[in-house]
């Protein structure tokens, strides 16, 4: 059996093996270190008989393979389609979110009112002529989605455009923000790093940063 395989190896290096036995032998060669060594020696014999350079350095191939072990996979290697679609989808979603955040007009806020602290503020009076919608009715609505972040959590904000007044914090809808965070967390494991992290312009304030005399601390 071995001798037959060695004879096939000899024919293989001469390009004189039929396709099917060649495929079988190549599979075997890549898994069989002794056979690979024989392949190396056969080539040393060839080089010598052809009076070509024998640059046989101990462990040359092993050194190359050790380096490759530390390298990433070959560029251009085809990635699975689902991964490409997933990454593409994540990028598209990120772009959409960024565009939404940058173009969405800030809701009118009373001057100096801290953002996302609507719960502390008095409930807005229903607009005359408009139907009064109670909170309970809103929650029972199928379109209502509870935000992941508590809406009245204090947030730090940053201006989102160059033209904005730096003294005025930009308004960020907590639901939108929670969506961004949720999306970032979901896409972080698979999608390549894009600019989603930079879209996170506001973050909930940490407890320890709340002044001791603030209403939230009490």
């Amino acid at each position, binding site marked *: 059996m071995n001798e037959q395989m060695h004879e096939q190896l000899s024919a293989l290096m001469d*390009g004189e*093996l039929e396709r099917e036995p060649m495929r079988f032998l190549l599979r075997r060669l*890549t898994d069989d270190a002794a056979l690979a060594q024989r392949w190396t020696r056969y080539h040393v014999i*060839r080089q*010598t008989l052809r009076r070509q350079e024998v640059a046989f*350095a101990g462990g040359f191939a092993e050194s*190359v393979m050790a380096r*490759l072990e530390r390298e990433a996979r*070959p560029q251009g290697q085809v990635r699975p389609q689902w991964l490409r679609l997933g990454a593409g989808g994540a990028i598209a979603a990120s772009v959409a979110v960024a565009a939404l955040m940058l173009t969405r007009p800030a809701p009118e806020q009373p001057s100096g009112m801290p953002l996302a602290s609507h719960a502390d503020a008095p409930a807005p009076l229903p607009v005359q002529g408009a139907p009064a919608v109670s909170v309970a009715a809103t929650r029972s609505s199928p379109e209502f989605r509870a935000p992941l972040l508590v809406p009245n959590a204090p947030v730090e904000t940053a201006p989102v455009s160059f033209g904005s007044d730096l003294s005025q914090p930009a308004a960020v809808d907590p639901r939108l923000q929670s969506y961004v965070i949720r999306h970032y967390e979901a896409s972080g494991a698979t999608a390549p790093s894009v600019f989603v992290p930079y879209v996170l312009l506001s973050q909930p304030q940490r407890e320890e940063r709340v002044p001791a005399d603030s209403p939230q601390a009490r």
Partner: protein
Amino acid sequence: MGESDVDQALVERVQKGDKGAFDLLVRKYQHKLVSVISRYVNDWSECQDVAQEAFVRAYRAIGSFRGDAQFYTWIYKIAINTAKNHLVSQGRRPPTEDIAVEDAVQFEGASRLHESATPERELMRQEIERTVFDTVERLPEELKTAITLREVDGLSYEEIAEAMNCPIGTVRSRIFRAREAIDEQLRPLLSEETRSP
């Protein structure tokens, strides 16, 4: 089937993620690549480093190899570019003219490499050469003729069968037996070489 078909089959396996197939390509082409690089880099150990780098670059780019050219032609170009880049990074000037791929393997730069190799390596090289040719001389005539027609004259099995007036299967067997006889003598030398740093 030809030698280039074997290379292509190996490349396809590498492209599917089989690193072992690339190992076989390295084992096959290491001598030729070192020989080509020696045209640009004279020092033996430096030449080995550049050859390693060339193989690593080839591996990184192998996804883009589509088989339009032969694998050796492709990796030969990578080796040349790697050698030139190496010289530039060392502040040296690479030669302006490249050697043609078909002339590359016959290039006599090897003799310059011999000068920069350690005495032990040079001794080993001479020992390998002596072992191979001595063994071929002692082979039965039909084995000696078959292996010579194949390796020295580059004839195909069919051409050898015609020249020796025997079936192709017999040619295949004779060439294999010749290789085995040489390999038997060579194995102790090369396993020693493998252990050396």
